[in-house]
């Protein structure tokens, strides 16, 4: 591949790529993100390739395996261009019909379309589906259009034009000013102003400086960084190179979790392609600016996503945090000034350079500009990645885009900010989402995880879950975090297992205050948040667990019993056969009874009991009625 030596040559190459592409030529795009992989997109891809050949269309149809489209709930997803016909939950058996009907005959296949659950109408085009229609996909939008393994696809959409503009028309100071003016705040958690961080790093003494992409996305429940890096790695690279130019850095790292193998693969390919085109290396675009980048795989430690810990890991040592009396922008990797931003932040930079800070400031709220990608997951109908302008309300996100709560259940709360964040109860459903509003409500933005909870979610169990997570992930270096989290976890475990005492709530608050004030890094100082926010909004659930030994959501096993209502049991034998521990006795025409001593409370009987009987009941905070003596089923009419 020829090297690109100037912005003019870049434009020539772009024209050349576009001239070979007919926008009216049919193109099938198939989502090949990790979630769609799990839903079988590989098999679908194989049959599309085979069918195109079989039906003799190889010369007339393009096929592209793209990054994540975001609507993971309905994967694998196919979009057929130029019409943008969208088919969901495709299986290999659907493929021959798609090729013969939609590609050849231009006919839409009704049964593969999205059905709007409120109107029951079929929706033909991707952009008309409510999940997509209510979003503003500035950063994430290209994911579905390009093959992440093809730099030409990225160039065809105008890729690297921001880099060309920065290097040829702007000084590093001007780039810095533009980013500062945009008020872009870091998308990784804290929301620190990006321009200010860059400036501190730029002004830090020393010749050698590093820029780093944090793709250690550790917050459970958030996966937008994975999808961006997997689906559009060049956008991240482009942002990184621009940042390096502004800061005066010539070496970069991409720190990515090894749990994300596809992201590692795609970013490795992207770097090689960018090197071949001369977009990385010496004298980029003939500007005299040199920059190289290396990939470092993280080995599975949540705390290593913390900036000082991540930098220690880059040096090959155990990724533990250090006190930050001196910021990492002054002394980071190998004690050199180092600027760390997360994936989404870097991917936003090219947009700001291309369209200008004023454009960016026109989107969002007073304190939080631009859009944010959220991973909308949990008990919501349309799970997936959504990108919306800052300031959209929770209600709009969960109900308009997410389609409301699953199975007609009631919304209880939404958890944001991962283990450092908190829960937001229903009374704040009209809260506009931005960095500051979330903090005011006792939670935080974090990296954008949004886990929707319904009436079946126990808030004490949720707090225990996060503390258990943090207890495992605490590196153990400082005592308040290591011991404090453990003690809070012990108290919470006691409460969920029926050993809670009245004084526990006060004790939790006391320990929480200590951990918050005295821990070394943000893992510890934010660790009490899941406890404090559930205590603040759902103290009644704590009280029910402690005083009545009752779990209102029937989640905490030790406080729940399963019981078959003899009045409703039809002796159908389904639960009896499915019980994994043989705890259910009974037989044909004999009412089934659960042996409470054997029952492991696995919930299987409750799940399999046919809804028309609903004989299996969960009890909490009340004794299980004694077994009936006469077990012969008197066949009831009806």
């Amino acid at each position, binding site marked *: 591949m020829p090297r690109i030596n100037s912005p003019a040559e870049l434009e020539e190459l772009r024209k050349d790529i576009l001239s070979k592409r007919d926008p009216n030529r049919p193109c099938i795009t198939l989502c090949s993100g*990790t*979630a769609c*992989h*799990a*839903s079988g997109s590989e098999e679908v891809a194989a049959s599309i390739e085979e069918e195109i050949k079989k039906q003799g269309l190889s010369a007339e149809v393009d096929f592209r395996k793209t990054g994540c489209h975001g609507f*993971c*709930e309905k994967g694998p997803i196919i979009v057929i261009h130029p019409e943008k016909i969208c088919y969901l939950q495709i299986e290999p058996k659907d493929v021959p019909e798609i090729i013969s009907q939609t590609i050849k005959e231009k006919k839409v296949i009704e049964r593969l379309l999205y059905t709007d659950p409120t109107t029951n109408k079929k929706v033909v085009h991707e952009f008309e589906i409510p999940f997509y229609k209510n979003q503003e996909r500035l950063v994430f939008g290209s994911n579905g259009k390009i093959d992440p393994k093809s730099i030409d696809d990225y160039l065809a959409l105008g890729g690297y034009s921001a880099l060309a503009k920065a290097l040829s028309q702007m000084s590093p100071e001007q780039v810095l000013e533009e980013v500062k003016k945009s008020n872009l705040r870091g998308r990784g958690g804290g929301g620190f102003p990006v321009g200010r961080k860059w400036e501190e790093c730029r002004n830090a003494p020393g010749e050698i400086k590093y820029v780093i992409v944090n793709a250690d*996305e*550790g*917050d*459970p*429940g*958030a*996966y937008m960084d*994975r*999808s961006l890096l997997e689906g559009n790695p060049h956008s991240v690279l482009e942002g990184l190179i621009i940042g390096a130019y502004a800061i005066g850095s010539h070496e970069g790292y991409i720190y990515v979790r*090894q*749990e*994300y*193998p596809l992201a590692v693969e795609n970013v490795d390919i992207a770097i090689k392609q960018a090197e071949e085109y001369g977009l990385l290396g010496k004298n980029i675009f003939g500007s005299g600016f040199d920059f190289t980048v290396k990939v*470092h*795989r993280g*080995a*599975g*430690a*949540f705390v290593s996503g913390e900036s000082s810990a991540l930098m220690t*890991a*880059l*040096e*090959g*040592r*155990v*990724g533990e945090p250090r006190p930050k009396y001196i910021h990492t922008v002054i002394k980071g990797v*190998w004690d050199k000034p180092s600027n760390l931003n997360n994936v989404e932040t870097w991917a936003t930079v090219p947009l700001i350079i291309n369209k200008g800070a004023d454009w960016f400031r026109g989107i969002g709220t007073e304190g939080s500009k631009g859009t944010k990608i959220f*991973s909308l*997951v*949990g*008990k919501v109908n349309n*799970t*997936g990645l959504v990108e919306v302008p800052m300031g959209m309300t929770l209600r709009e996100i969960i109900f308009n885009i997410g389609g409301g709560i699953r199975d007609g259940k009631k919304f209880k709360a939404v*958890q944001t900010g*991962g283990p450092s964040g908190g829960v937001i109860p229903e009374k704040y459903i009209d809260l506009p989402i931005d960095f500051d509003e979330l903090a005011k409500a006792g939670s935080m933005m974090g990296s954008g*995880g949004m*886990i929707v*909870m319904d009436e079946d*979610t126990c808030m004490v169990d*949720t707090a225990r*879950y*996060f503390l258990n*997570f943090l207890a495992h*992930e605490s*590196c153990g270096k400082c005592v308040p975090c290591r011991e404090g989290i453990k003690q809070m976890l012990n108290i919470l475990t006691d409460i969920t297992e029926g050993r809670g005492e009245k004084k526990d709530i006060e004790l939790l608050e006391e320990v929480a205050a200590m951990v918050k004030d005295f821990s070394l890094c943000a893992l510890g100082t934010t660790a009490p948040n899941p406890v404090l926010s559930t205590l603040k909004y759902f103290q009644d659930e704590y009280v029910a667990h402690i005083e009545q030994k009752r779990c209102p959501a029937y989640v905490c096993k030790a406080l729940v019993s399963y019981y078959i209502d003899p009045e409703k049991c039809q002796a159908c034998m389904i639960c009896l056969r*499915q019980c*994994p521990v043989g705890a259910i006795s009974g037989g044909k025409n004999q009412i089934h009874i659960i042996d409470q001593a054997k029952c*492991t409370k*696995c*919930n*299987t009987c409750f*799940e*399999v009991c046919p809804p028309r009987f609903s004989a299996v009941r969960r009890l909490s905070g009340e004794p299980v009625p004694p077994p009936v003596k006469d077990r012969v089923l008197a066949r009831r009419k009806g």
Partner: protein
Amino acid sequence: MTTEEISRIDKIIDKYEGEEGILIQLLLDIQQELNWIPKEVAERISQRLNIPQSQIYRVASFYTAMSLTPRGRHLVSVCMGTACHIRGSPRLLDRITDILKIQPGETSPDRSFTLNTVNCLGCCALGPVMVVDGKYHGKIAPTEAEEVLKNYD
């Protein structure tokens, strides 16, 4: 270790020779190659790259991706992320420990399975998720776990 194994390990070490800060990357490669990090390998790295063994063990024991005991032929990872948790991953895990008769972190005596829990696989929309030998299985109900595991021996 056999001479063949030593030369395989040496080839991996060669890639990193003379570079700084490579220990984590090197150990990840070895983990992938051998499925664990045997004592002899730690010794070999120490000799060849002049890294103290204490440092090698410190890194290998800190990170969950590395194992100092042999892993089974099949690696089963159950996602314990928040989204999976509230969609019932604890029950899925219970069922799997029941079927495999091992606890998370353990390997079955015949080395057929190693069971792991992971914090988040980034497949949150499809929870609960389990991964067997790199293949993702989404929206798995506890009652379906046996069906999935039946395909591996």
